């Protein structure tokens, strides 16, 4: 039987220079539903698709407020995100108490990056199984950071993580040049359009499964959930994936993207409508 002898811990390199446990953690993100973030000159928006484990169950929280100027969207293991968000909240409160200053977005993003990196270099630990989009506004303006379990923290104009996030990324890449001058409202709608492209074939955006986080100039972090999402979905109009409508166009772009990057196109991973396995990685 095939056995990978270089993935027993997160700190041992394979002969080809890879850390398998870290790569598995990055895979865990792709099991979670998508989160999308994007930035204008004045605002940051994060939108996320919530999943319920079963028909009668509640939906898993995807966007967490950290502070008045800061929030995160997650994809992957929700408990790991909880640990990280609690840490970020503690950092934010410490900054307010000791320096009377909202914590700079870049600083708190890099602090969780450092935490995650330690797990890739310390024996007996495991990497976080969650990716985060850190959205915040501080005196240097709006910021969007992508956090990965590898310890990678990068700033983006637009970013998407989670299942079928390539579709959202494709939307963002096609439209990002118009983002800087967008109003907050236009930015949210761009986010929702990117998010709906990550939907499975027969799914659509509902008030139950859509979360929106908005923060920016003179706009404290606002989380829209359930009823509050209704007005946004009305403004959006079509709540189904545009993939069916643009299937031919999409297939072409995917082929081009697949040729360009060697990354596997997660478009083709089938996701069951009702995730039933109790051990399933879900967020």
């Amino acid at each position, binding site marked *: 039987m095939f056995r990978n002898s270089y993935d027993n811990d997160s700190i041992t390199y394979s002969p080809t220079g890879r850390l398998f446990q870290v790569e598995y953690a990055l895979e865990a993100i792709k099991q979670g539903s998508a989160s999308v973030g994007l930035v204008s000159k004045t605002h940051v928006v994060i939108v996320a698709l919530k999943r319920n484990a079963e028909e009668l169950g509640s939906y898993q929280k995807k966007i967490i407020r950290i502070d008045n100027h800061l929030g995160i969207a997650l994809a992957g293991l929700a408990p790991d995100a909880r640990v990280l968000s609690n840490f970020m909240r503690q950092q934010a409160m410490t900054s307010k108490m*000791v320096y009377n200053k909202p914590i700079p977005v870049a600083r708190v993003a890099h602090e969780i990056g450092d935490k995650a990196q330690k797990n890739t270099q310390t024996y007996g630990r495991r990497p976080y199984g969650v990716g985060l989009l850190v959205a915040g506004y*501080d005196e240097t303006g709006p910021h969007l950071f992508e956090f990965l379990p590898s310890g990678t923290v990068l700033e983006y104009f637009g970013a998407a993580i989670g299942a079928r996030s390539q579709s959202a990324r494709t939307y963002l890449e096609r439209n990002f040049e118009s983002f800087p001058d967008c109003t907050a409202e236009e930015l949210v709608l761009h986010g929702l359009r990117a998010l709906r492209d990550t939907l499975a074939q027969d799914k659509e955006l509902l008030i139950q499964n859509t979360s929106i986080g908005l923060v920016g100039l003179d706009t404290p972090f606002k989380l829209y959930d359930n009823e509050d999402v209704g007005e946004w979905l009305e403004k959006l109009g079509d709540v189904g994936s545009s993939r069916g409508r643009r299937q031919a166009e999409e297939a072409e772009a995917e082929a081009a993207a697949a040729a360009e990057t060697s990354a596997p196109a997660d478009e083709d991973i089938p996701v069951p409508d009702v995730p039933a396995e109790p051990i399933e990685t879900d967020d």
Partner: protein
Amino acid sequence: MDHMPENWGRPRSDVYGSYQHAIHSAGPQSHTQVPSITGTSVIAMKFNNGVILAADNLGSYGSLARFTDQERLIKVGKETVVGFSGDASDMQYLESMLERLIIEDNYEQDGHNFRAPHIYEYLSRVMYNRRSKVDPLWNAILVAGKKDDGSPFLGYVDLLGITYSSPCIATGYGAYLAIPLLRKLVSEDEDAKNVTEEQARAAIDESMKVLFYRDARSLDKYTVATVTLDGNVKFDKDVRCQNMNWRFAEGIRGYGTQKQ
């Protein structure tokens, strides 16, 4: 049977080892209870384009004028000045803490800088923390600079962790002798808008002169620092009290060298 009653009821030495007399003689941990080298008043006021503050250059050892080159106003970060009165060694300790704070903040190179309200909050936490350990840093401190919205900032914190803000603040004797003079110009925040830097400087110089007349732990040599709203910090060092008149001293009887 042990026939020595004083050993009864005590842990046996052959089992537990002999009694450690250090335990008996250990008293409560003691800290510095009095300052030694001290600086007197720091005075400050807001004006239409910033904040001005002054402190003399004397380091007193009790009533002895021990050091005459003590600098008690320091620049912290790009646009903040902190003035210390009280113990000189505690001032130096706080100076090194603030220096480390600013250096470590600079490592990030992310466009964020500490301004006066942030440094003020930090200092007030340090001061209150130390007083709560009943080991206070023996200082009264003024922090001057710019608020986040660009308006002038002036705050006070002392060895008890007491904090307040006002358009004119002075520590020590200055609170009695300088404040009335400064408040003639600026008694409310609004008044500061009608006071120019020159007017403020004149009031500060006058106050320093009055303090030198009346405060026996003061010096006629002082430093004036000005923080302006464009972010400039200007230090005017080795300033001397001008146009003093000590003729009245001849008439004072009862102490000094006169024989009545």
